């Protein structure tokens, strides 16, 4: 499908950026004459306000944005799945405590945690940003895993496995995990889309990836003062964000039709 094609193109662009980009994304080529140039043969997507080649920045920006989104998704998935699986496997009292903790964490607005992390850590590298985002997004995954495992636990094959004397970790790994792949895959793709959108939104609040490292979000934000004179500077990264998020979202919905627990993630919650 078109969505998968888009995502793979973006992925290739991101991974291959150091080889594909014609210029260094942070090199300011000629401050006075090359500022805000429209697309031309030498610069396929033009230059930005600091006389940097936009195509190169877009490629490296894809790298940064996708790195943040992928890493945070991975962290969220791993933490969430582990917590959910654990909560479904221990004694009822611990289950209540663990899922109660999830409820508490879920109620804390993400924005506060982000703001807090920013102020506490000061400057955040993309990796640290990804960690913070990941650690604030795992609650919905854990609920998903928890509910699903609980459901599966009532099924016959699990009872059979238990009767056979298999230990819980083995049951989890061999019998339950395959059933979780589809919903987790869908949830993960959706979370990736959401986190990518969040990363770009953070630049507006001054909390995202910092200059001069390019990310699609901060490229859009930097281009806002020049919307009239150099509109493509904002339009290109914006359209790329939309295309990537949209296709990830489409893929996820297609794969995960039937998963009610796909919670929309945003900057606030």
């Amino acid at each position, binding site marked *: 499908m078109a969505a998968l094609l888009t995502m793979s193109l973006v992925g290739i662009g991101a991974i291959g950026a150091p080889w594909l980009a014609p210029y260094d994304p942070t090199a300011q080529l000629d401050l006075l004459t090359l500022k805000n140039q429209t697309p031309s043969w030498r610069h396929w997507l033009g230059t930005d306000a600091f006389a940097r080649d936009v195509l190169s920045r877009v490629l490296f920006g894809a790298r940064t944005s996708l790195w943040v989104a992928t890493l945070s998704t991975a962290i969220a998935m791993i933490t969430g799945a582990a917590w959910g699986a654990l909560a479904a496997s221990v004694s009822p009292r611990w289950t209540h405590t663990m899922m109660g903790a999830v409820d508490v964490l879920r109620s804390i607005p993400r924005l506060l945690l982000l703001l807090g992390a920013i102020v506490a850590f000061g400057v955040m590298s993309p990796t640290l940003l990804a960690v913070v985002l990941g650690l604030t997004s795992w609650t919905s995954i854990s609920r998903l895993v928890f509910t699903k495992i609980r459901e599966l636990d009532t099924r016959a094959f699990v009872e059979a496995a238990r009767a056979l004397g298999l230990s819980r970790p083995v049951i989890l790994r061999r019998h339950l995990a395959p059933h979780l792949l589809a919903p987790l895959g869908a949830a993960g793709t959706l979370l990736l889309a959401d986190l990518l959108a969040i990363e770009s939104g953070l630049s507006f609040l001054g909390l995202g990836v910092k200059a001069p490292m390019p990310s699609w979000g901060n490229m859009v934000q930097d281009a806002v003062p020049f919307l009239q004179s150099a509109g493509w500077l904002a339009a290109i990264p914006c359209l790329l964000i939309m295309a990537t998020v949209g296709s990830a979202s489409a893929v996820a919905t297609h794969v995960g039709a039937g998963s009610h627990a796909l919670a929309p993630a945003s900057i*606030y919650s």
Partner: protein
Amino acid sequence: MTGGWRVGYRLGHACAVIATTLILSFALLHAAPGDALAADTAQGGRSPAARAEIRRQRGLDQPFAVQLAHYLGRIGHGDLGRSYTDQRSVRVAVMEALTRTLLLTGTGLLGAIACGLLVGILQGWRSDWWLSRALGAALTAVYAMPEFVLALLLLSVLAYGTGWFPMGGMYDPLIWVTGTPMERLLDTGHHLVVPAVTLALGWGAAVSRHQRVALLETVGADFMRTAVAKGVSPFRLLLRHGLRPSLPTVAAVIGLMLPVLAGGAVVVEMVFGWPGMGSLLVRATAARDVPMVGGAMVVITTAVTLSSLAIDLALHRLDPRQRVHAR
């Protein structure tokens, strides 16, 4: 679980949330370099002696545990304190911001539900009709757009481009000062349209996603086809049997969006100059205004947990299926 136990559990949970949030925000702000007075240091501001005096007055030179204890004690008594930036009562400022935010996010949510229901129903009912696909794609595109781009776009096109709507703010100051209450009401409504539409479009996709899933299960079901074959009007059918199962989904969505509802949609608030909770929080955090941040967090988490409880109870009653699978 019986109703009473459930309510008790949820109230306990609410207290836990509020306490955790308070301690967390206090700790984070305390750990952050710089304090309320440092923000204007680079531009001059007060002399070092004056700064030291103010810090002493506020007890900022005490150890962390002492400060936290004092703070929690005051909150326990219901005293939310005074803002560090302008010494205004935190309770007044926060409640003011909360009502403004609820007006905006509430309207936005209504619009999102309407929008999402519409598209979701269309997609569920007639998933291969070009209009439902187009609308679905458009909604996803809007959802994928960075929020501030969407806000600026709507501001430029809907407000500036057509001239029908104001460029932001909650009301026209002149009408606010000289107008009749009715005029003021209409004026606020007029100012509400574009920011609420922004929110509605942005959230509509999420709602429609949930909606579509829920509806797919009922619309395709046999009983629906039987009813239509028997001659029941599809419209009535949709209302009665299609929408009823959607109500829990909608309630679930509202539940998930509660932190945003109470906490404010920062980006939209800042672009449209709508002075709500979101921008209050961002401003107070940047200014290290500890009482304000704490007060805002208390109010937000209280509002969220109480309404979450209400929704849970409502869900419990609305969806008969849920009653079977007790917790």
